[in-house]
């Protein structure tokens, strides 16, 4: 009869699958042991398995394991070729200890062998003493089988007790979710609550639309009667957000007026149900919300979890009522590169190589495709730094750096090495004694640290020696200057223990190991700052005076919109070239922050097109400067492949510092380097439209036309000067105050402004040359002070 019940249960599961729950093929394993066999289970270690009628959770039989002598020993099931990599499974077993066995913890584990390596994955576990001889305990967990396909996959059941005998019943392996692929729909969700609750429901709360306040329209959704912090408005997004896809999530929140001055910490979460397993995940972290204004909660979220149901909900750190409005969930397509645009590196081939960084995940897939298409030089972002290569004394880890070198060689890219001696990303042991105590300055400490430095550099350069033909530059020493110090030297452990000897030693050691074509660089930031530049001159002069083999200077160029000016870069490079004839100079880590002083943007999508336009023109102007230096800059490396991976973006501040956006698409910054005629408002021009009015208040109307492409942002007339070239001498007075802001001019549109001039005393035939400089993009387009070619209405033979 019980067997019949089990059959009915299986039938029920099948029907459930047919009715839209799990698919019919979802059940991979269902072991009940009612047939008297071991049902494919075998011993894992030297144990005895018996089909037993002594205990059963359902039916009359179960699987008994005895003779265990180690924790890992137990029953096992070979699942090789039965689970699909990329898919997720719920694995369940009911366990009970043999009579008289002390309570213990029982675990479901997976022995997985792939690529010659065996891993032991945890699937699920009871609590520490969660399994007893007094009843059955369910152990379940989700298991996502990682790529690549394993050569061996064995599920086994173990316990904390090395000897406990236990029964197992009703074990199952169920497919929860297949390999993530393209989502069945990309519709997303938009809820403005103007027509009711629009499918939202109360999750432990009462929800209703309200007109008390609204972010957009006239209604919002109010959650009251919240049973806990977790309670609030919710939406079933099982058919909106799909495993493997990424979504842009935005919602607006506010407290009702009744909250007064109180605030709440509101967040957006997801409840994931997979089989019978439920878990909770933060989509947008806590944001402080009050009753005075609507506050936006926004973020990008990648759904990377198999599920049978997903619930999107808004909660807070208390149980107070809150309002939400204008909720939007938008599908973000997977990144892909544009194949029909010119290569950045090819566009600069006549001038210098253009490089970017390599990092884990940055040299594979579409990200790797982007690198190959647009760059011809590669530098490791972090994987060649001391802390990555030798975190522990004598233990070298080259796998990541080797992968980058192999990638560059395979793609025909040149390599920059980075960096051998730096005060950051250094393991502490380098400056400690054998007992882990910080070394005190002494001749012995100095000798020890220099010995470690030589050993490290020697090991690293010997390791990369087989690939040295691909390298053309190496940042040997990084950031040792501190202009606040009288001797210009940063008080790093290196300096405190060795003086400047660590610098000389690094260069001499590197020179002894690297062939001459690999140039050796000192690399630093803010090299345009006057005090820093003075120190740089002093440092290089000292190195050269001591015969230290330095070949070049690396200018990191981590800069921001507005500082330093392209002219300052030009002056800095020329001053070093003059002081040290023949020295190489490279731009080694360039990126451009939106600003040092704001405005700042919380999310990437908040950065307005006008700012992207400014960045585009800034990149144009800096690259113009590099090219104008006519060979004094012999390489430019951009410190980021795209905006989706940059050290400048933090949790609270988004930046767009490089050439491609977070979806790997070309930004104005790209066009600024490759083809500035494609920049927004590139064709902006001005003309004199009319002259009218009295002699004392003559108005010249100036037209500003934007033929495109794109909007000319923040157009302004910067000035207006008249220079007399004919007729009786007179002094016209320009009465208009400058700058005159004309705002944004869309592609194909024109804006006008009048300039009032007092021509009193000027005869009709007095002739003038007029110069009316104008600019856009906050001066980056048109203002020579920002390195731009001038935009000017310049006309001669002008009468009043």
């Amino acid at each position, binding site marked *: 009869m019980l067997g019949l019940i089990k059959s009915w249960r299986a039938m029920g599961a099948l029907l459930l699958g047919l009715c839209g729950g799990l698919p019919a093929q979802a059940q991979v394993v269902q072991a009940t042991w009612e047939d008297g066999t071991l049902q494919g289970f075998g011993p894992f270690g030297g144990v005895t398995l018996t089909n037993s009628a002594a205990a059963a959770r359902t039916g009359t039989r179960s699987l008994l394991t005895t003779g265990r002598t180690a924790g890992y020993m137990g029953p096992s099931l070979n699942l090789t070729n039965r689970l699909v990599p990329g898919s997720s499974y719920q694995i369940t077993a009911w366990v009970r200890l043999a009579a008289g066995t002390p309570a213990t913890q029982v675990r479901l584990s997976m022995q997985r062998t792939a690529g010659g390596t065996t891993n032991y994955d945890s699937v699920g576990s009871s609590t520490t003493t969660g399994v007893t001889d007094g009843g059955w305990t369910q152990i379940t967990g989700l298991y996502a089988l990682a790529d690549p396909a394993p050569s061996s996959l064995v599920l086994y059941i173990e316990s904390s007790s090395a000897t406990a005998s236990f029964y197992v019943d009703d074990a199952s392996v169920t497919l929860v979710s297949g390999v993530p692929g393209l989502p069945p729909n990309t519709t997303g969700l938009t809820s403005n609550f103007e027509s009711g609750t629009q499918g939202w429901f109360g999750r432990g709360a009462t929800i209703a639309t309200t007109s008390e306040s609204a972010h957009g329209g006239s209604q919002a959704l109010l959650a009251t009667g919240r049973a806990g912090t977790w309670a609030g408005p919710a939406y079933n997004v099982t058919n909106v957000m799909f495993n493997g896809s990424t979504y842009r999530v935005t919602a607006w929140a506010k407290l009702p007026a009744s909250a007064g001055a109180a605030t709440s910490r509101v967040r957006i979460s997801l409840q994931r149900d997979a089989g019978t397993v439920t878990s909770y995940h933060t989509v947008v972290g806590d944001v402080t919300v009050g009753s005075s204004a609507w506050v936006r909660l926004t973020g990008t979220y990648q759904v990377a979890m198999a599920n049978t149901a997903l619930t999107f909900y808004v909660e807070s750190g208390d149980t107070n009522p809150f309002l939400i409005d204008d909720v939007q969930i938008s599908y973000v397509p997977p990144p892909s590169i544009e194949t029909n645009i010119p290569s950045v590196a090819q566009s600069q081939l006549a001038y210098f190589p253009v490089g970017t960084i390599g990092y884990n995940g940055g040299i594979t897939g579409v990200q790797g495709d982007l690198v190959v298409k647009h760059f011809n030089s590669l530098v490791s972002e972090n994987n060649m730094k001391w802390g990555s290569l030798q975190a522990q004394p004598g233990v070298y880890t080259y796998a990541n750096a080797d992968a980058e070198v192999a990638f560059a060689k395979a793609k025909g890219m040149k390599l920059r090495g980075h960096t051998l001696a730096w005060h950051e990303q250094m393991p502490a042991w380098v400056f400690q004694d054998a007992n882990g105590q910080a070394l005190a300055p002494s001749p012995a400490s100095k000798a020890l640290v220099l010995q470690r430095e030589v050993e490290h550099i020697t090991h690293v350069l010997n390791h990369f020696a087989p690939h040295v033909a691909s390298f053309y530059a190496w940042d040997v020493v990084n950031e040792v200057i501190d202009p606040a110090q009288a001797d210009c030297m940063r008080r790093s452990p290196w300096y405190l223990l060795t003086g400047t000897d660590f610098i000389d030693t690094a260069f001499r050691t590197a020179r002894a190991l690297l062939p001459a074509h690999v140039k050796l660089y000192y690399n630093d930031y803010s090299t345009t700052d006057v005090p820093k530049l003075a120190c740089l001159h002093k440092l290089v002069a000292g190195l050269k005076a001591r015969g230290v083999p330095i070949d070049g200077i690396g200018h990191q160029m981590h800069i921001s919109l507005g500082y330093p000016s392209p002219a300052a870069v030009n002056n800095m490079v020329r001053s070093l070239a003059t002081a040290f004839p023949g020295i190489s100079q490279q731009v080694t880590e360039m990126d451009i922050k939106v600003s040092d002083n704001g405005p700042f943007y919380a999310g990437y999508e908040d950065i307005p097109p006008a700012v992207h336009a400014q960045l585009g023109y800034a990149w144009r102007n800096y690259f*113009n400067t590099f090219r104008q230096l006519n*060979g004094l800059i012999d390489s430019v490396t951009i410190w980021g492949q795209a905006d989706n991976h940059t050290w400048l973006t933090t949790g609270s501040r988004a930046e767009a510092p490089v050439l491609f956006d977070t979806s790997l698409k070309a930004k104005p910054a790209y066009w600024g380097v490759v083809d*500035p005629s494609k920049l927004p408002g*590139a064709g902006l021009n001005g003309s004199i439209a009319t002259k009218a009015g009295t002699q004392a208040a003559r108005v010249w109307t100036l037209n500003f036309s934007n033929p495109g492409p794109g909007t000319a942002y923040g157009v302004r007339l910067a000035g207006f000067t008249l220079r007399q070239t004919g007729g009786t001498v007179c002094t016209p007075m320009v009465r208009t105050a400058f700058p005159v802001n004309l705002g944004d001019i869309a592609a194909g549109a024109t804006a006008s402004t009048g300039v009032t001039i007092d021509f009193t005393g000027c005869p009709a*035939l007095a002739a003038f040359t007029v110069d009316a400089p104008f600019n856009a993009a906050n001066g980056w387009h048109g203002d020579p002070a920002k390195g731009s*070619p001038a935009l000017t209405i310049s006309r001669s*033979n002008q009468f*009043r």
Partner: protein
Amino acid sequence: MKSNLKLLFAAAAALLATATQAAVLTLSPAVIGAQPGQTAGWGFSLLNDDADNYLLVTGTEFTLAAPSAFGSYTDLLASRPEVVVLAPLASLTEAYDALLRSGIGEFTFAASADGRLDGQVALHYALFSVDPLSLSFDPDLHLVDADATAFARAGATALPEPGTWSLLGIAGLLALRSRRKISSLRSSA
């Protein structure tokens, strides 16, 4: 009806004025070339095809926002001391001469210039109903168009330096020689 007719005439006059306010600019040659660091210029032919008005040249410029590393443009036509005026339907043709400073403008190639830059030369002018050089000219009364522009496509090519040609020639000769050597080795093997 009378006022409608007036409007019609006004519109027709405006159209006519627009249609006649066009100058035709031709560059000779359209594409100039010089070695990096050197200067070359454009000669031009300018036709004032306006049957009623006088054309006064007010400026020229190379309009493409070129990579400034390529070089810089100098206006020759509008920067000379004497004004350039074309009577209705008159034309002016002038060759570029660096010494005489004749022509419409010149381009100085940057030392790093490489390849070819394509853009256009813009000639700005004003139109007057009376000759600006005549005694009866009144710029207030006789101004027809304060600022019009004629365009002509223009290119600037940075030519390889003689040294480069020599090197290329030497490289070619060496390649030829080495091929001959290889072929003689092959035949002797």
